[in-house]
């Protein structure tokens, strides 16, 4: 289907089904139960799952295939966000022109940075991209304030022109981003007994775009172009002695992944029409690296898993507090309960970064292939045979 072989079609359909049913799957616990805090089925979080999924899918096209580790990818996301917000300010609140401009601007920006950075490889490439991103961050934060809004960020205002759209709503408010009248923040709710499910328009718009982005990434992975990118990672010397200049290929991959980041940035602004320089900070670049590695760099499904995992942890683990911990361990004897709580406490709430750092280290040390490799190992263990060597690294199965 769609020019994919059977396995890839299955993978795409599984992802599509998971994404479509996410409002149910992420809300497995009844609304008023103790476990409701583990529900992740609210619009804001679900939007972030798919948006960061797009970001990581794009990053994976560069890092997973060519092995070039960019430490400045957040710059493209930030640029995309700014472009989208400007479109909301100047043109209209329709998200399509905003997203299109975000992708184009990020692509041009990536072309520029990639053209220079890709003259070097290895650690030098990482440092160059990092330097460019930090420069963009510093400029957005200070000198470019008229364009970026500086410290406060770029926001919509009532007196923005919005030349082909509605400037002010009838209620005198700033209009919200929409797709031909469908407002991104609108949701339908479905109450089934004690359960409450939310279906948000913005989420489904993002989800459809993510599926398209995912489909394109599968096509790239399976194409000779993708094969060339893997060849760059595998042996650049042989590639050169095969008459190929690797730079146009790496540059193409860099620009494509920059456009993915711009798309994610544009969507982010479409869900919540503001943009700030902190989106370009190098820790944000680090985050997408974490997502990709955690899920499994160079695999198709890995980045989506990694992005979902990290965003879930960020939102759920960071909400757990001491009271909740006491509730969990109430069945223990008093002294033990307190001990357990104080052991677990540093890792939850504000400490979720610590948990993240530890998980990340463990993954890099023991499971360099990320969650996907973990899933394969478990699957192989249950099948009772050793790792199937004939399966290529790029042809990974979804880890379920």
């Amino acid at each position, binding site marked *: 289907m769609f020019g994919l072989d059977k396995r890839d079609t299955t993978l795409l359909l599984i992802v599509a089904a998971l994404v479509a049913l996410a409002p149910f799957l992420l809300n497995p616990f009844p609304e008023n139960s103790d476990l409701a805090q583990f529900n992740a089925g609210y619009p804001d979080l679900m939007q972030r799952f798919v948006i960061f999924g797009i970001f990581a899918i794009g990053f994976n096209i560069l890092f997973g295939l060519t*092995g070039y580790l960019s430490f400045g990818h957040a710059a493209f996301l930030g640029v995309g966000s700014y472009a989208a917000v400007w479109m909301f300010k100047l043109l209209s609140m329709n998200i399509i022109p905003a997203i299109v401009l975000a992708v184009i601007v990020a692509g041009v920006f990536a072309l520029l940075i990639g053209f220079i950075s890709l003259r*070097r490889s*290895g650690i030098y490439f*990482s*440092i160059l991209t990092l330097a460019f991103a930090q420069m963009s961050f510093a400029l957005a934060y200070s000198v470019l304030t008229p364009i970026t809004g500086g410290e406060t960020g770029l926001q919509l205002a009532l007196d923005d022109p919005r030349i082909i759209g509605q400037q002010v709503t009838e209620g005198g408010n700033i209009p919200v981003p929409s797709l031909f009248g469908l407002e991104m923040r609108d949701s339908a709710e479905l109450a089934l007994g004690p359960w409450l499910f939310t279906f948000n328009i913005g989420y489904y718009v993002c989800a459809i775009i993510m599926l398209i982005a995912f489909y394109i990434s599968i096509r790239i992975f399976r194409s000779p172009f993708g094969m060339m990118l893997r060849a760059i990672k595998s042996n650049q010397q042989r590639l050169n002695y095969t008459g190929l200049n690797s730079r146009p290929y790496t540059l193409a991959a860099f620009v494509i992944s920059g456009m993915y980041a711009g798309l994610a940035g544009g969507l982010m602004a479409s869900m919540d029409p503001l943009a700030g320089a902190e989106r370009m900070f190098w820790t944000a670049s680090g985050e997408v690296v974490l997502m990709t590695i955690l899920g499994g760099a160079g695999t198709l499904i890995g980045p989506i898993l990694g992005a979902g995992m990290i965003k879930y942890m960020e939102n759920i683990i960071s909400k757990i507090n001491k009271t909740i911990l006491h509730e969990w361990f109430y069945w223990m004897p008093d002294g033990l309960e307190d001990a357990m709580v104080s052991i677990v406490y540093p890792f939850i709430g504000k400490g979720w970064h*610590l948990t993240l*750092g*530890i998980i990340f280290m463990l993954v890099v040390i023991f499971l360099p292939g990320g969650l996907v490799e973990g899933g394969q190992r478990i699957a192989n263990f249950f099948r009772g045979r050793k790792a199937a060597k004939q399966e290529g690294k790029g042809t990974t199965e979804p880890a379920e």
Partner: protein
Amino acid sequence: MDAIILQILNGLDKGSAYALIALGLTLIFGTLGVVNFAHGALFMIGAFCAVTLSRILTLSHEVIDETRKDFLGNPLKVDVPYVYDWFGQETGDVIIDWAVPLSILFAIPIMIGIGVIMERGLIRHFYKRPHADQILVTFGLAIVLQEIIKYFYGANPIPTPAPDAFVGSFDFGAAVGMEAGQIIYPYWRLVYFAFAAVVIGAVFAFLQFTTFGMVVRAGMADRETVGLLGINIDKRFTIMFGLAAAVAGLAGVMYTPINSPNYHMGMDFLVLSFVVVVVGGMGSLPGAVLAGFLLGILESFASMREVIDLIPGINQVIIYLVAIIILLTRPRGLMGRKGVMEE
């Protein structure tokens, strides 16, 4: 002329910090071939060694002072630091006042210990892995270390003053026989620069004049051959890592009066220090030091009002801009050796 001297002086303290961190990074890279993203965290831990020592020194117990009364007429409870009990009030005060310099002694064994544990426990297993994996695992370690510090010390900067004798500024211009009142320079920054110079000198002397240093330098040039000579190079590299950690830690200890330490200071410095290493030339110790000072001073020049008026925002980006230009025109950096990190 005054303005130029002033900017050079202003650049020295940051430049010193860059140079010290970059020196450690280069030692680790040159000897072990590892790209250590956790090096900034070592700088930060050093700073928190100073915080910890000054807290230990001011640990107090309550004493009832019969001579003074509170507003209800009861005897006043006063906190008396333990150091008063041990050394008497006068000496105790001096010790507390000198907490930051004293932290040097406190930090050296701690930093060497942390460095050795890091190398033995983690880095060692990454010698044969790709550089990307090294970057990633040390990046993860940096997050963990800074979160641990944040857990124990909180997220806010902790002011840690210099000894009273070094608080305040002096007239540098008058001191070198120029017009008075033009170049005012804080004492501690001069101390920091002198300290950095001593540490850098000591590291170079150590590498130059001891047998240990000779073996390490030989190892930096050609690891396999030295291994073949039957010298246990691994053990020496462990010690080298400890030394690099100590250098970063000391840079952090002495930096506390200049900038109140917070948990993310390491990351802030790390990004710039990496740029410094790359500009200086991966694996070149003199290059790291030179580039550290050079970029520190350039940054301070770019912060001059006149320059900012001319090119807005230049102070924010000058280091990155220089790095980009250098990397594109001199790929090996200012003093880089051939064959380092070249695929």
